């Protein structure tokens, strides 16, 4: 029963959506607070390499995840320092962050390869399994549950955490004063400042938090999903996330839906590819599909929804 096509596609869609949701939540929050981080591609990549290096050097998967969180947060801290504190242009600094991450991860990868670390030992990475520390038999029993097993339980450790983070972020943004402050930071930073809210401190903290989430998403890609690293393995995923954030109108619930929809497209295309459709349609069509879908989504989404009013603007406006 569990090899029904819809069940398999649902399982794959969720596997593909997890890193998008994880990094997308961070980017949504940062953008709501008025900071546009185009460097998210670089943050993801830094998470990939740091997670991989941490896991392969220490032999412990959790150390890899910790390294990825720290790498994402550090790179985001550089971005925050340059854009929020020094008021430099967010787009240009973001692209600089991308260049630094591409070069840095490429160099680190070469050094790792030369020291004979090009393969991740099985015990150094995360094995498949939603809840860590649970025996393989229990894991397999849950994954084998009819109809719901594959997509609900046959996922990687971060999938469950991502659901919790998504709920937490949604609740905080929707129901708490902190959520209101985040929104106000992006719409009316002057009013925030007048109410005694430290605009720049808030923004720095939120951007760094977003960086840590992107780092975790990177670790998901390298030490969970692909169990390895290759340069440019993010392949533009960060830019797709930027599109999903806009398509989700900077709301966590819509973002999750958008990411799941995107995951379904991704799962469908790999399913069609494995069914031999590449004989009819060139594989480059599949390669471009995520970006075409993202562009179409932005083109045909309802108009008149503008994002945070001060998105991308340095604050204070003049000094």
């Amino acid at each position: 029963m569990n090899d029904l096509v819809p069940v398999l596609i649902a399982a794959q869609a969720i596997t593909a959506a997890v890193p998008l949701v994880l990094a997308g939540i961070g980017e949504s929050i940062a953008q709501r607070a008025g900071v546009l981080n185009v460097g998210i591609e670089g943050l993801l990549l830094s998470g990939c390499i740091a997670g991989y290096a941490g896991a392969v050097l220490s032999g412990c998967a959790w150390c890899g995840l910790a390294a990825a969180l720290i790498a994402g947060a550090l790179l985001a801290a550089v971005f925050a320092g340059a854009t929020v504190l020094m008021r430099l242009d967010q787009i240009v600094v973001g692209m600089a962050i991308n260049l630094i991450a591409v070069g840095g991860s490429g160099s680190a990868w070469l050094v790792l390869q030369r020291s004979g670390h090009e393969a991740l030992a099985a015990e150094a990475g995360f094995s498949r399994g939603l809840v860590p520390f649970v025996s393989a038999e229990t894991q397999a029993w849950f994954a084998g549950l009819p109809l719901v097993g594959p997509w609900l339980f046959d996922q990687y450790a971060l999938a469950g955490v991502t659901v919790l983070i998504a709920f937490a972020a949604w609740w905080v943004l929707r129901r708490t004063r902190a959520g209101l402050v985040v929104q106000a930071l992006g719409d009316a930073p002057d009013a925030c400042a007048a109410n005694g809210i430290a605009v720049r401190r808030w923004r720095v903290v939120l951007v760094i938090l977003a960086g840590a989430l992107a780092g975790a998403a990177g670790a998901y890609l390298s030490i969970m999903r692909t169990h390895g690293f290759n340069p440019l393995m993010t392949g533009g995923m960060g830019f797709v996330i930027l599109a999903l954030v806009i398509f989700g109108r900077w709301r966590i619930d819509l973002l999750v839906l958008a990411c799941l929809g995107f995951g379904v497209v991704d799962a469908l295309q790999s399913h069609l590819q494995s069914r031999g459709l590449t004989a009819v349609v060139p594989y480059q069509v599949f390669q471009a599909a995520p970006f075409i879908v993202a562009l179409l989504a932005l083109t045909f989404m309802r108009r008149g929804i503008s994002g945070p009013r001060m998105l991308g603007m340095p604050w204070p406006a003049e000094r």
Partner: protein
Amino acid sequence: MMRSWIGGVLIALGAVALVLIAVLVVLGIAGHPPWTVLTTWFQGAAGSWTRLALSVQEAGPLLLTGLAAAVAFRCGVWNIGAEGQFLIGAVTAVAFGTVLLIPGPAWLVLPVIAVLAAASGAAWALVASGLDRWRGVPVVLSTILLNFIALAVVGMLVQGPLHDPATTAPQTALIADHLRLPALVDGTKLHLGVVVAFLIAVVLWLGLTRTTIGFEVEAVGLNPVAARLVGMPVAARQVLVMALSGGLAGFAGAAQVIGVTGMLSGSPVSYGYAGIAVAMLGRLHPLGIIAAALFLGMLSTGSRHLERRLAIPHDVGDVVQGLLVLAVLVAAAIAARRVLRPQGEEA
């Protein structure tokens, strides 16, 4: 006027010095003595006439993509799509140099191909302008997404209609011999297209600083609302700039395949993204960008030499590019604060 010019140069030089020191320190900690790194790098970048010519050859595409970025950024149009526009221009040139051969002498056909390639790059860029005008899709995002789509389109053409039947490798056939540009210096592929790139930079400098349209482009970039209020055609200037930017990147792609590679293999080129670093280091000024492109061209050939001699990954060059962008922005911000606020009050 004079002083702001000197200030700009000082800012760029300060940023370069800062980043070089930082990189040398890091490499020093990794066990490479700074003086050895510096001399090896310089040998690779400009150690002989041939090496210098190689650096200039490498500066050619960087100069064009740098100008492409700068023209757009000056007008406040965030065209991050030089990468894709470069590829589209390159594949157009390959198409007209292989399967769609235009009859006629090379001196007549090559300019036609250059114009076609520039036009295709411009058309690719204008997709982003169109989506912005029609549906409000942010240019900064659509141009990036279009880069990845362009890569797939080129990949499809390279393995499809343009594929070299003599090989199974994913690459196009070689451009017809009579359409290839001869090397100007032995041992390099420095070609006429690079010379044209430098001429274009000078023409752009004159156009941006000495004409009404150039002034309007600048004004729209500084404050589009104010520009509209004084009756400037804001949207028309933004579209013009996008077309010009895409055209420059497309021409860069054509020059690269006609002058250097002779074919296309469908892998990413990264000249487009590097162009952003060139534009920022050149402070968005065409003459500054000439200097920045030459420097980054030297950085590129030098870092490949470093990889061969000292086994330092050439990816370090990418890190240096990113750091240079940051350093230039920081230096400019510090300089602006010095000039604008002599008695420092802190916010």
